[in-house]
């Protein structure tokens, strides 16, 4: 009783193999165009891969191995889709929207409405039942869309950035609902938010250029990223290099750091990565000696707002960043092109083998 | 009523005038073959003239002339339409220049076995005729009354052409059209003349328009139509003597 997929879409350079356990939720993360939506569309049957097989709880979704050609139509797959937009049918009221799935799978009108009412109660939207979708807020509509997807009793729930279009007030409420809903359920959720991955998923899969580049339990991947993308997700600076006695030699840069979470020091001379948060990086206009042991000159390439901090990017392609307050940025009159010192406490730099 | 006949107007000489320039002739659609032929001969006989022909249903032409269409001559397929214009004083004295009688046309091979007018009333025979509002329909009605036969047409068209079209396409078993139409349709139809047709003779009058731009040429063309040369062309197209 598992979900198993192997699929390739040649034109998009997409080639992914994935399994999801019975009550597991997998978060799919990756840059734009990495193939995240392609993955969901292939699973849902909205896109025809060039080759591969997929099965869900023993049923074959497709099997395109040479010689065979099994293809289950989208409506027979039991893979309900929840997109960024709620896409509630605008001509049906909330109750009929939620009853759509049960009706389509042959339930009587009465039974479908009963089921819809149960699911509406479950997402705490019973009082919306006779409204039209146009009369709902974005958050309410997405809440109803969740109920509608669940009412279809899917074997696998597919969520494509379900909170991306919600405003800052509606997103946390839906996140809380999804946390509850996904707990005992098999699901794949595409997200750009680390918080979503942490709160909702058991496992994270990083998709890059149509292929899985890293996967593992969510917290592990985020705490100990092995790839630049995962480090970026976790909002961490990431430097690859060679492990030294006290830290890492990355190009011309010698970093002091702490060998991470291992019994005993790491073997020197091996390839490794140094990871540290931008918030641990201070910016100085001159080389002031102090307690932090890492201090090196850099050229500012960019300044950009980041939350309510200012992210100062530096290094050849902006690969190093420091987060400072807007007031500090204004005080130092920082500007791109300026030569400044990045200062980092050795205790904030984690070194691991790569 | 009509003011003249062919005898009065026919001088036998169509070209002895000082006519020149363009003359615009509005003629009933059924006159197309005859008048196209005649226009060439008139231009040859009257160097410097140029005949422009406009064909349409007689009542269309009446409406157009009433609304100021630039006609010099009007040739109608019936006297009723000519009367409308004479009544309004828009044309000069009309002359009857031709007659036309109805005939039966059937698709080649007469699949329905039609031999005469009465056969048209047989059940199962698809007859197409003109509506009584138009001249050919009025003529049909007259023959029906004369012969005591009642037709049950499958369609009552507003023009002879539409009747002929239904027969040439093989859609109808028989149609009632003018002799001239049967002639112009050639081998596409078989004509079955019937004696009762003589009971309803349709008379064609012609007149110069009163405000003609080219009055001399208009008069000359009217005279030419009534001349022996004109009458010969009409006879060739199947028209009878007025």
């Amino acid at each position, binding site marked *: 009783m598992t979900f198993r997929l192997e699929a390739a879409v040649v034109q998009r350079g997409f080639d992914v193999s994935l399994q999801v356990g019975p009550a597991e939720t997998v978060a799919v993360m990756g840059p734009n165009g990495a193939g995240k939506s392609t993955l969901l569309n292939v699973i849902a049957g909205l896109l025809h891969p060039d080759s591969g097989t997929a099965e869900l709880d023993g049923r074959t979704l497709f099997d395109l191995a040479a010689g065979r050609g099994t293809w289950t139509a989208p409506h027979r797959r039991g893979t309900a889709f929840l997109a960024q937009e709620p896409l509630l049918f605008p001509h049906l009221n909330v109750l009929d929207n939620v009853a759509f799935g049960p009706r389509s799978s042959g339930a009587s009108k009465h039974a479908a409405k009963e089921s819809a009412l149960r699911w509406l109660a479950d997402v705490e939207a019973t009082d919306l039942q006779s409204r039209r979708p146009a009369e709902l807020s974005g958050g309410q509509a997405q809440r109803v869309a969740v109920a509608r997807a669940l009412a279809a009793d899917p074997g696998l729930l597919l969520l494509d950035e379900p909170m991306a279009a919600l405003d800052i007030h509606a997103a946390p409420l839906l996140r809380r609902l999804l946390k509850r809903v996904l707990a005992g359920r098999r699901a794949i959720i595409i997200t750009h938010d680390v918080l979503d991955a942490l709160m909702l998923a058991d496992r994270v899969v990083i998709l890059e250029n149509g292929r899985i580049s890293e996967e593992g339990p969510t917290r592990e991947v985020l705490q100990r990223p092995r790839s630049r993308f995962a480090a970026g997700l976790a909002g961490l600076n990431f430097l690859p290099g060679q492990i030294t006695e006290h830290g890492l030699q990355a190009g011309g840069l010698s970093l002091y750091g702490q060998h991470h979470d291992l019994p005993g020091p790491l073997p020197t001379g091996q390839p490794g990565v140094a990871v540290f948060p931008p918030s641990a990086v201070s910016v100085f206009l001159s080389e002031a000696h102090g307690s932090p042991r890492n201090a090196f000159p850099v050229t500012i390439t960019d300044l950009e707002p980041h939350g309510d901090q200012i992210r100062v990017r530096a290094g050849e392609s902006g690969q190093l960043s420091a987060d400072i307050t807007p007031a500090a940025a204004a005080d130092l009159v920082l500007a791109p092109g300026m030569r400044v010192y990045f200062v980092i406490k050795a205790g904030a730099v984690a070194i691991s083998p790569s | 009523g009509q003011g003249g006949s062919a005898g009065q107007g026919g001088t036998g000489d169509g070209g002895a005038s000082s006519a020149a320039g363009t003359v615009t002739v509005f003629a009933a659609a059924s006159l197309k073959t005859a008048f196209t032929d005649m226009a060439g001969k008139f231009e040859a006989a009257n160097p410097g003239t140029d005949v422009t022909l406009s064909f349409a249903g007689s009542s269309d032409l009446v409406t157009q002339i009433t609304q100021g269409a630039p006609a010099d001559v009007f040739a109608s397929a019936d006297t009723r339409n000519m009367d409308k214009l004479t009544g309004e004083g828009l044309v000069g004295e009309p002359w009857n220049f031709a007659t036309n009688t109805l005939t039966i046309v059937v698709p080649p091979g007469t699949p329905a076995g039609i031999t005469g007018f009465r056969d048209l009333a047989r059940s199962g025979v698809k007859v197409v005729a003109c509506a009584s509002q138009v001249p050919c329909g009025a003529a049909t009605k007259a023959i029906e009354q004369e012969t005591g036969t009642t037709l049950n047409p499958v369609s009552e068209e507003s023009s002879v052409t539409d009747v002929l079209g239904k027969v040439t*396409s093989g*859609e109808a078993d028989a149609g009632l059209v003018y002799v001239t139409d049967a002639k112009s349709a050639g081998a596409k139809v078989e004509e079955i003349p019937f004696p009762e047709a003589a009971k309803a003779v349709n008379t064609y009058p012609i007149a110069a328009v009163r405000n003609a731009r080219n009055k001399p040429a208009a008069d000359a063309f009217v005279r030419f139509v009534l001349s022996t040369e004109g009458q010969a062309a009409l006879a060739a197209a199947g028209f009878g003597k007025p």
Partner: protein
Amino acid sequence: MTARKAATYTGIPAWIYAVAAAGALLVVLPMVAMVAKVNWANFIPLVTSESSLTALGLSLRTSAASTVLCIVLGVPLALVLARGSFPGQRVLRSLVLLPLVLPPVVGGIALLYTFGRQGLLGRTLEVAGLQIAFSTTAVVLAQTFVALPFLVVSLEGALRIAGPKYEAVAATLGASPSTVLRRVTLPLVLPGLASGAVLSFARSLGEFGATLTFAGSLQGVTRTLPLEIYLQRETDADAAVALSLVLVAVAVAVVALAYRS
């Protein structure tokens, strides 16, 4: 500068309004002229004569039937054109639009060559016991032929605007293609379908040339209101104008209804 706010700037040069007025007059003046010509004293008797009422009734009945036929054939065509992707799609659209630009008389001839007794399908139909020519069926066919493009064009536009997103979601919820069509696609494009249907009805109501050529003209069977008007002109121009006005009134009502929203 959101759309809502910038909408208050129209940027239409003043002279454009003058030219637009001239353009509107080209259409409005003829209507005014026609109304001016109506013999109002005789209007009611002319319009309510037996032949007029028969023709109006036949027109309404056949137009309704051809509108239904336009929907039955046009919805699939619009769907296939808007959603499908197959070789020859562009040629098909070009062909479906043809009756829009074809002189109706030519259309009538072509229909005769197809469904007539000696036409392409004539013998097949005759064997099947179907006689189309000179029947009310022929009127409906002729009207459908000329009115179909109006429905297809309106609906294809609506389908393209609606996009396929809702259909995809419905499918993942377990709805079969037929269920999706019935419960999602059609309800979504209902306004486009309605305005297309109303335009088709109006075009059917006004159809003349193809009907005359293909179906003939028999009171109560094939003589629709436009054919009756044509015939009335032979004897009584007043009656023709009065009947035309009835047709114009129905057409205006129908177009206004179509563009209500």
